[in-house]
């Protein structure tokens, strides 16, 4: 009987606990932690070189511009551009990269910071940035210092094929390598959620092999389809943007930091009627419902701010620096500048130490020894044939 009483009591306690926890979840503190991330990072990569691939640089810069506009600071963006289009000698308007024809929108701007440029954009550097395995002297701006509460946006563009993406016309990264890199990131807890967008031909093949949790992927075309470029500008002479990223930019221009647009809207960007190719997406590895994921969870850096009305006492102010001792106390000798071209000194300069060579006599002695041993072994009569 006491056993039944105990069981009933236990059930009542457990049910009370569950009701209490449910209430906590729906209070303000619960809502604060429901989205899961506390900081945002972006890795934007353009993998193509040469002037006729202007559109890939414009693609990457338009995503960079949107991401900066929505709040992610430069210190949290790793921008990799494989070639310089803005200050290229073929650019009729230097220091600009346009996304719309008739030079309507300059996505390069006045405040851009490129972290990896030119020959530095290689598969090795890209994978090192993702996995964090960089040499110790790498500066902070070139590192992806994310943690397990970071939402990361990764955008790749360039020329690709079924299962690979070409880097600078000399090497490629395969979809399996990319999937393994993301798994490494998951194992080292380098991301909370990751959004992967790729704008290349047959882009959907790049996300087929992903197997780590919390990944969502978008591509501009399915396997077997090509992604097409949008419009050329006759003054610049090349195609300015790719179709998918052009419509993505137009969609993102409508988004502002407080907007409630979610991922389902992003999946609808650029249907086949506009893009000619069929954009694809993959959400099976993602735990939350895409309809509840805000665009600003990945493209922006929206912080939840807690306002406090209490006063806080600061610690004591900065100590004044130690005063320099008076100049009259110690007799300091006057310093002088160095002579820029001291001709006499240079002419009589001692030559620097050369590498050590054995003294000349040593080599002569060595050969004499060898010859003597030879003639001793084989007899002196051979000597007259030599001399």
């Amino acid at each position, binding site marked *: 009987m006491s056993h039944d009483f105990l069981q009933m009591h236990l059930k009542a306690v457990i049910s009370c606990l569950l009701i209490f926890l449910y209430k906590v979840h729906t209070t303000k503190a619960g809502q604060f932690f429901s989205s899961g991330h506390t900081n945002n990072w972006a890795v934007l990569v353009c993998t193509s070189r040469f002037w006729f691939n202007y559109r890939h640089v414009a693609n990457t810069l338009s995503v960079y511009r949107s991401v900066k506009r929505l709040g992610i600071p430069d210190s949290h963006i790793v921008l990799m551009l494989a070639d310089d289009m803005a200050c290229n000698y073929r650019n009729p308007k230097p220091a600009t990269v346009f996304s719309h024809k008739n030079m309507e929108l300059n996505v390069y701007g006045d405040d851009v910071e490129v972290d990896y440029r030119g020959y530095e954009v290689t598969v090795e550097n890209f994978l090192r940035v993702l996995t964090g395995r960089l040499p110790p002297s790498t500066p902070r701006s070139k590192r992806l210092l994310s943690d397990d509460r970071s939402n990361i946006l990764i955008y790749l563009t360039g020329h690709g094929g079924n299962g690979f993406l070409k880097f600078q016309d000399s090497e490629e990264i395969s979809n399996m390598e990319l999937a393994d890199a993301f798994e490494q990131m998951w194992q080292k807890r380098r991301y909370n959620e990751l959004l992967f967008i790729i704008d290349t031909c047959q882009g959907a093949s790049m996300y087929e092999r992903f197997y780590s949790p919390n990944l969502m992927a978008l591509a501009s075309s399915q396997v077997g389809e090509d992604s097409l470029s949008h419009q050329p500008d006759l003054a610049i002479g090349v195609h300015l943007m790719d179709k998918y990223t052009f419509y993505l930019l137009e969609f993102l221009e409508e988004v502002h930091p407080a907007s409630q647009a979610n991922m389902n809207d992003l999946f609808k960007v650029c249907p086949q009627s506009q893009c000619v190719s069929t954009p694809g997406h993959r959400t099976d590895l993602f735990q939350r419902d895409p309809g509840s994921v805000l665009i600003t969870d990945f493209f922006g850096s929206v912080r939840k701010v807690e306002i406090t009305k209490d006063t806080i006492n600061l610690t004591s102010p900065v100590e004044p620096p130690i005063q320099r001792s008076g100049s009259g106390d110690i007799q300091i000798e*006057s310093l002088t500048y160095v002579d820029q071209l001291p001709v006499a000194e240079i002419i009589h300069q001692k030559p620097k130490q050369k590498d050590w060579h054995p003294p000349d006599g040593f080599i002569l002695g060595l050969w004499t020894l060898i010859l003597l041993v030879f003639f001793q072994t084989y007899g002196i009569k051979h000597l007259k044939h030599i001399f």
Partner: protein
Amino acid sequence: CCSCLELFFVGEMEQKQAIWCLNPKDQFQEELVIRPLHSGDIYASFQFRTLWDTDFLQEGQKKVSHYRLFPKSLGQVLSKFSVQELHISFTQGFWRTMQWGQPFIPSPPGAELWVWFHDTVSDVDGNWKELTNVLSGIFCASLNFIDMTNTVQPSASFKPLGLGNATDHRFLRYATLPREIVCTENLTPWKKLLPCGSKAGLAVLMKSEKLFHSSFHSQAVHIRPICQDEQCTSKAWELRQTLNVVFDHYTSGQGKKEWSLFKMFSRTLTEACPLASSSKVYVDITDNPELFELSPATPLLSQAVVLGDRRTYSVYDLTRAETFGQLRSFNLLLRWKGDNMLRPLLHAERYVAGFGLQTGEIHTVIYNNHPYRAFPVLLMDSVPWYLQLYIHTLTVTSKSRDNKPSYIHYQPAKDRHRPHLLEMLIQLPPHSMTEVTVQFERALLKWTEYTPDPNHGFYVGSSVVSALVPSMVAMSTNFTQDQPLFSSFVPVKEESSYFVRVYTEPLLVNLPTPDFSMPYNVICLTCTVVAVGYGSFYNLLTRTFQVDEPSPPLAKRLANFIRRIRGVPLLA
């Protein structure tokens, strides 16, 4: 720190701090020099100088931690790597000495970095490697490509421009990256190092769309210790940020010798930087006294001896409110018709001679245009290891006669380890042309060492010609605080000559490039040949033939079926 004056009346601690603020140990000056060039182009040179009385190399208690005008990122770099002097420049374009004269501060195309380390450093190479990585992050440039294969240790060139006793060249490192591009991403962090940023003062004029649409653009950072006063008993750290730009007569100027600040920079000046103790604009009016039109007019004139020549400048002081006039905006207008130019006394060129992809010859030509004086020059050449120089073919000829250099220092290259370094002290006869030639052979690189675009070619950095050129006008050796910045960069030791550095063009050589699609083509061809050859042979040996009757048409099949039922013989 300017706001700390409000704390003046509160407490003892705050009083100490306020007093310190009233006697600041750092000061900031900015100036802009505009010089019309005889070809119609216009040369604008910005100089921003921060002077700070401190010691970066102190450790422990006295370690510098409170930065006011001096940028913290550079201060931390100096103390961490024990740097005595740092000079870094990013240049786009080549300075045409014959058309434009001498620049105030010369720089080679691409990126150039040379550093003097303090003599307490034990591992200079390790510090150098880390320093280049840190600077590549600060300036958004690929300076991390500087390694042992393109770093040299000059033995006589690049003496320190600041104070210092030790001139042991073991602590000097020099490297150039001729391929480095300069664009807005390098200008942005450079502007952020200024105390006022790009929001006030002269830096407001730096808009990238106009600055990069020019014939020549160079931005540099020079850090060195200098004398604080005339007696030179104490030293202070000086940070100079310079930006030189030459706007083209035809592309930006629309073919007219008429320029204004708005036309050059698409902005006008509205105020001086509040943190600057002096903010001035100088316009060079020496060449064109009568046919020159300058508005708004200014009574202030200043004379300065710079680069061996006495020049007259009109001065506009931006710290005075009347410079900005009624509209509170300062837009300078220049119009000139004159055409005189002082011929530069020292000038150098370099080119590659020869044909084919195996051998070649590097020619360096140095001109001495002085009518009667001879002077020595120090030529420094740093050639990458893949151009194998044959030093026994080195010839130096002046006026078609052999000219033996009085000092030669040559360090041969080690493959994939270090480049060639050749330094020579050559006496140039008056009014002559001196030619230095050396033959080389091109090496075949390993296939992973080629860049992704090897058909562009490989760059060889500029040669550096350093000289003490005899001066027409006596240079002043006195050091005064009021000297304009552009004339006080290089310390002057004697009155009769001035120090100048001339950079030659970088070279672009083609190395024999393999066909990178070759392995793929070979595999396809070989597999096709093997398949066709082996397949045919296999078929010949193992294939047998069988007679196969074709199936009869439908009508015949139906007829045969009916005949079988009837028991009548079938059709063929």
